């Protein structure tokens, strides 16, 4: 008889695993991650991403420091309320409740998918601050693209492994995020 109790995986490891092996995390580990923690990850990711957008615009002389702060706050809103709304939309469209998947699970899994965005955004910010590079597109957008894979697995899980639906929804979510970012950047400028 196996008497060894399974060790709990730390949440930061789960967040990193979401980048490397999202299929496993979505299937087996997401029930242990509370949605506020996941929203904190996505919120931080978009805050840093939007901060870089603001810094890029400021370097171009298009905006001042106060607008950079405004854009950064918009990023926080985008990464928390925006991502939660997106998750709820996909949850509803995929009729995930019929598969006993809760809205909280959907928000948590969707938001934790932005761990990769956080890594990219943090790296980009370091390059932006130390070398003065314009990093919003190179690091920020790439980070958002890398979040599509975890999102895809989350949507697959919610939709009962429907491939065509998952591809369509992942595309829609990616398009909403990128268009939203482009529009908010213009609004901030």
């Amino acid at each position: 008889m196996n008497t060894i109790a399974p060790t709990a995986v730390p949440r930061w490891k789960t967040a990193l695993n979401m980048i490397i092996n999202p299929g496993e995390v979505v299937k087996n580990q997401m029930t242990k991650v509370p949605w506020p923690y996941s929203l904190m990850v996505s919120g931080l990711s978009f805050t840093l991403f939007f901060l870089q957008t603001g810094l890029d615009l400021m370097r171009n002389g298009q905006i001042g420091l106060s607008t950079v702060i405004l854009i950064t706050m918009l990023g926080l809103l985008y990464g928390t309320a925006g991502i939660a709304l997106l998750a709820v939309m996909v949850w509803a469209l995929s009729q995930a409740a019929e598969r006993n998947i809760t809205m909280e699970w959907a928000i948590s899994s969707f938001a934790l998918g932005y761990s990769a965005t956080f890594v990219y955004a943090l790296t980009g910010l370091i390059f932006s601050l130390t070398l003065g590079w314009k990093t919003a597109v190179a690091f920020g957008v790439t980070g958002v693209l890398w979040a599509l894979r975890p999102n895809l697995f989350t949507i697959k899980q919610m939709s009962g492994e429907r491939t065509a639906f998952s591809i369509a929804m992942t595309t829609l979510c990616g398009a909403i995020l990128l268009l939203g970012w482009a529009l908010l950047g213009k609004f901030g400028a």
Partner: protein
Amino acid sequence: MEMRLGYAEGAGPDGVKFWPVYLCFVIFGIMIPFTKPEFKILTLLFSLLISLVVGFLAVNLLIAAFKSGNAALREANGQFAREAVKNGMLFMIPFTVLAILAQFILGWNAVMPFASAAIMTAAATAGTEVMKKGAQGIKNVMIPSVLAFVLSTGWMMLTGILP
């Protein structure tokens, strides 16, 4: 013409279609010349050729890697690798659509980050698909990722030196 060598009895490739995958590579190949300062037909032709070669290598090297690393699965189902690669590589579609959006609607002039993320994600997803079919070991995720990294890096370098 497709060769049927290496398939288990009765397990032909008829049900596994790769055209959506190659279409994604073709679309990337068409978009790349638009990121250059000046659009040239010669650039388009080279770009299409490179994209198709990268696509062909990605699909076939992944199939070969999965087959060589999972002998037991190969015995049970000769098509498992083709099915997994097809299912995984289909996930290039969202990146391709978003690249079109970024290039032609948002005017970002940044096709290669999308292409790179597409190939990396699709290859890793193919690895996950193989594991769903019963393959064991992290090698089924690591090898596709390394392969995709090499191919996408090569693709980016060749794109950089296009005429």
